[in-house]
């Protein structure tokens, strides 16, 4: 195994970069593992890594039906932030944000976490009160948040439309300076490489088709590559949570919906931070390659197809141009869609299920990417100890029926309403 470094690259300059080994082994499944993780996205791979790193559990397999990182890990708009209003959410995501700040070194894989600032624009006095409330809630829990005046916003993002005559004039913003973006694929690959180094088996093109049950317990999984025994099984399949849990006879508080995103042709730097809005449903950033990456609301009806509806993305573009008129003559290069696991209070689910030995990590809605480190860390804790960590204790599957939902937007059991 190679250690990644500038020196390694220089050495490669002399040998034609011929010394690099595969980032992870293409493992063949063994008969039994202490923990089997279904889903080789960021969350599954991170969980595997922390199981080995933190809990010393190395007899772990990550089963991926296709290629790792090919689901929502590779289909998001790469935003990382912890600016939530409700304490269980901002505490969880802040724990993750702190992990992001050292993740490249931790994994010896540059995930390009770029704390360039996440700006949430307010368009009325009412918006500004809500932003202050959110910021105050964060600050009281030790998380960075600052209010910005339109003048301060203009210094960061001079191309925003700051006209008073705009349909949604910009009255101010809440910025989380430590928020930003990361390179999404690198997160999956970095965790895969680091987990592989700790002895974890990453098995691609291995689809789970059923669960092996012994009494009430899950004792393994049936896959397209045969039966694999497991002490505990963790589901980390995002948009496919409902489908996989269904194989175990479970119905989840999750509905799968399509979320679209797009990237424009590359141009020189024009968006410096991550721009979001309290009233408009679009978010804008610029990738290191120069493309403007943006998205909007999900197509708010259920679907497992990675095919979006054009007027949804057109609506998000209209809003983005209203915010930043200079985007008009850029060209949309590519659109893509992911299948999001919209939960019924907008918050994730990390914890045990009613089936013994079966654990769920899902319900990420359109915000799972930024959670990757914290999600892996807490899910690993839960799988290793059989009990939730304080950070994910509020996110149990039973909270819906108990009445302890964590409803950031206050919209109730309607995954199609923001």
């Amino acid at each position, binding site marked *: 195994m190679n250690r990644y470094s500038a020196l390694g690259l220089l050495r490669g300059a002399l040998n034609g970069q011929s010394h690099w080994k595969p980032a992870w082994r293409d493992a063949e499944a063994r008969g039994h593992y202490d923990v089997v993780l279904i889903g080789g996205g960021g969350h599954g791979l991170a969980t595997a890594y922390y199981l080995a790193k933190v809990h010393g559990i190395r007899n772990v397999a990550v089963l991926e039906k296709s290629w790792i990182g090919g689901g929502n890990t590779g289909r998001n708009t790469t935003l990382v932030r912890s600016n939530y209003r409700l304490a269980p959410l901002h505490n969880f995501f802040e724990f993750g944000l702190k992990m992001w700040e050292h993740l490249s070194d931790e994994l010896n894989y540059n995930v390009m976490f770029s704390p360039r600032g996440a700006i949430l624009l307010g368009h009325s006095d009412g918006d500004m009160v809500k932003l202050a409330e959110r910021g105050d809630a964060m600050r009281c829990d030790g998380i960075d948040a600052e209010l910005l005046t339109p003048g301060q916003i203009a210094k960061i993002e001079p191309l925003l439309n700051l006209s008073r005559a705009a349909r949604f004039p910009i009255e101010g913003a809440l910025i989380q300076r430590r928020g930003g973006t990361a390179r999404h694929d690198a997160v999956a690959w970095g965790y895969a490489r680091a987990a592989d180094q700790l002895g974890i088996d990453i098995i691609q093109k291995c689809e789970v088709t059923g669960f092996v049950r012994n009494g009430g317990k899950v004792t393994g999984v049936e896959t397209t590559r045969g039966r694999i025994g497991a002490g505990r099984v963790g589901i980390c399949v995002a948009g496919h949570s409902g489908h996989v849990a269904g194989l175990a006879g479970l119905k989840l508080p999750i509905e799968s919906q399509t979320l679209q995103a797009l990237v424009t042709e590359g141009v020189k730097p024009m968006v410096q931070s991550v721009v979001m809005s309290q009233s408009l449903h679009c978010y804008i950033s610029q990738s290191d390659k120069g493309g403007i990456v943006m998205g909007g609301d999900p197509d708010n009806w259920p679907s497992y197809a990675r095919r979006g509806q054009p007027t949804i993305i057109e609506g998000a573009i209209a809003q983005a141009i209203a915010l930043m008129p200079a985007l008009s003559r850029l060209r949309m290069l590519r659109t893509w869609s992911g299948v999001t696991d919209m939960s019924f209070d907008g918050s994730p689910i990390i914890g045990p299920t009613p089936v013994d030995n079966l654990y769920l990590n899902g319900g990420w809605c359109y915000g799972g990417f930024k959670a990757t480190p914290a999600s892996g860390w807490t899910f690993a804790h839960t799988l290793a100890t059989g009990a939730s960590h304080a950070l994910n204790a509020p996110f149990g599957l039973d909270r819906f*029926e108990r009445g302890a939902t964590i409803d950031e937007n206050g919209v109730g059991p309607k995954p199609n309403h923001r």
Partner: protein
Amino acid sequence: MYLIPCPHCGPRAQVEFTYERTVDSVVQPDAATGVAMRALFTRANPMGLDEEIWRHSFGCRAWMVLTRHRVTHAIEAVRAVGPEALP
């Protein structure tokens, strides 16, 4: 952009419609708490056909049930609901 066969108006573009919820999530208000909350908060969410409640919100405003495939997006059947659909 689906073409949705409204039982009252005929085929119309999807932008005229709003998805509301699945048929299996409908509960009467007097249902027992456990039963009601399970119906309200869980979904079969199949990778296949499901019965969904849609509303022709920017058209005749009528409600209907679509039997729709979650992967192919094919609409297999539609039926009207509401007072007009009563026998």
